[in-house]
């Protein structure tokens, strides 16, 4: 499966990364080289094999559904690039 420029553009948009048009061919080449190398997985017969999603135990631990933290607006906002009172500041979203 070879990835074309249009696909790279779409993936960049999905990734929310701005890519200059001039950089697209080089990026496509790099990504195609990596995907071409990954392609060898298709030789493995995985019929009926369960996918492994986690790194350890198959079942995650449960905890009580209770509030255990909170009320720390200043700590949460301390690193904000822009804030208005107790809110993060962003460009206008609603027209």
């Amino acid at each position, binding site marked *: *499966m070879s*990835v074309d420029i249009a*696909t*790279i553009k779409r*993936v*960049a*948009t*999905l*990734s*929310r*990364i*701005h*890519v200059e048009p001039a950089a697209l061919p080089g*990026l496509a080449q*790099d*990504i195609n*080289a*990596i*995907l071409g*190398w*990954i*392609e*060898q*997985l*298709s030789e*493995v017969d*995985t019929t009926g*094999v*369960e*996918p*492994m*999603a*986690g*790194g*350890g*135990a198959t079942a*995650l*631990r449960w*905890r009580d559904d209770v509030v255990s933290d909170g009320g*720390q607006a200043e*700590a*949460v906002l*301390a*690193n*904000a*690039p*822009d804030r208005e009172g107790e809110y*993060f500041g*962003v*460009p*206008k*979203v609603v027209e």
Partner: protein
Amino acid sequence: MRPTDLSLAQARLALDARQISARELTQAYLDAIAALNPRLNAYITVTAEAALTAADAADQKLAAGQGGPLEGIPLGIKDLFCTAGTRTTAASRILGDFTPPYESTITRQLLRDGAVFLGKLNLDEFAMGSSNATSAFGPVENPWSRRNDPDTRLVPGGSSGGSAAAVAARLALGATATDTGGSIRQPAAFCGVAGIKPTYGRCSRFGVVAFASSLDQAGPIARDVMDCAVLLRSMSGFDPQDSTSVDMAVPDFAAAVGRGVRGMRIGIPREYRMAGMPAEIEALWQQGIAWLRDAGASIVDVSLPHTKYALPTYYIVAPAEASSNLARYDGVRFGARVPGADLTELYEKTRAAGFGAEVQRRIMIGTYVLSAGYYDAYYLKAQQVRTLIKRDFDLAWAQCDALLTPATPSAAFGLDEKQDDPVAMYLNDIFTVTANLAGLPGMAVPAGLDGQGLPLGLQIIGQPFDEEGVFAVAGAVERAAGFSARPGVIA
């Protein structure tokens, strides 16, 4: 003997006997950092004043006989661990001047046990790399150099390149590190020091900047196997704040280091004998096998048939998880921001300016393999192959107690080598990545020098939660190797 000559275990004894103060020891390391860090670039941030304050507090506790297991021990912290009040960068521009309001569980436990933090260590950006060349704060230089080519600057490996270089050059007595595909073991091997990635779930991931959550595990890099055992004990333990942390008692790892290997069955996986593997690596491996046989272990030939698929599997799973984890860097809640006309433009410009080329590449590969139409062909397929890789190990454990392999396919390479070919760079992790995919403990131990005088390491892979077995084998390899060579750049 100078203070920086003491190993962690030796420093413990000297501090307890009041032969040296924590302040003297810390000052010796700060002097070493001042002298050598401008060249090696192992530290991104040095916290000299806080270190001396912590050392004074440690001296008071030691005087009162209340010292913890690491009281007064100066450590470097990989700049992927959140440290309350100290800037944490992940070696990325996108975190800007991010100063965590909270402490990672691992650093909190190290502080609990009395450790003194010297500063934050350099790494590949978001731990994505094998040469420390992707850091936004510049590359780290390996303190070792080739005998016949001393002017070529070599990489320390990655991603924990700052951790390994700092320990090797004695800019820290030990260091924290993380390992997603080999990021503890490969740099440890390149720098002639020891490092262990414990079993997935042994160390809490809370407060460690996430790369690929099902593969990431923290562990120590230190001067020798015993020092790693001491540090790992403080770093380990159940943490309710990490849902994958395992509620299991932490053994006294140090007690296992001298246990020996008599009666142990050591597996030699035949698929790790790669075509084109340098003769020196093969010779070192054979030497390691002979050492363990001489020490009373029985050597067993085992097969891990899916080994060759481990790296391609990793380069689907890790970028997929990274693309999801790194979605949080959006220029809104913390970190750097590049303004945009609307929110989407703000995101796209912030992420384009904030992430380096390799991180962008991995986010896009991850996004692609998770996108509609490709999920089954790539991501699901990789998860299935991952099951087969883990199954290979499960079957091998019926025949052996631990595995011995080379740690890396080569010694450290030049700063300008392999940087233009992502796949060539990825091959560095060929022997280490399987342990991450299967969640197993793995340790690199310095075992010899190549013809150019550069360190080479052997790797021990153990069964889940049998770090003690890993330490026993690593200790035996270390005693037999008697590795005493030192790098050219050293405090």
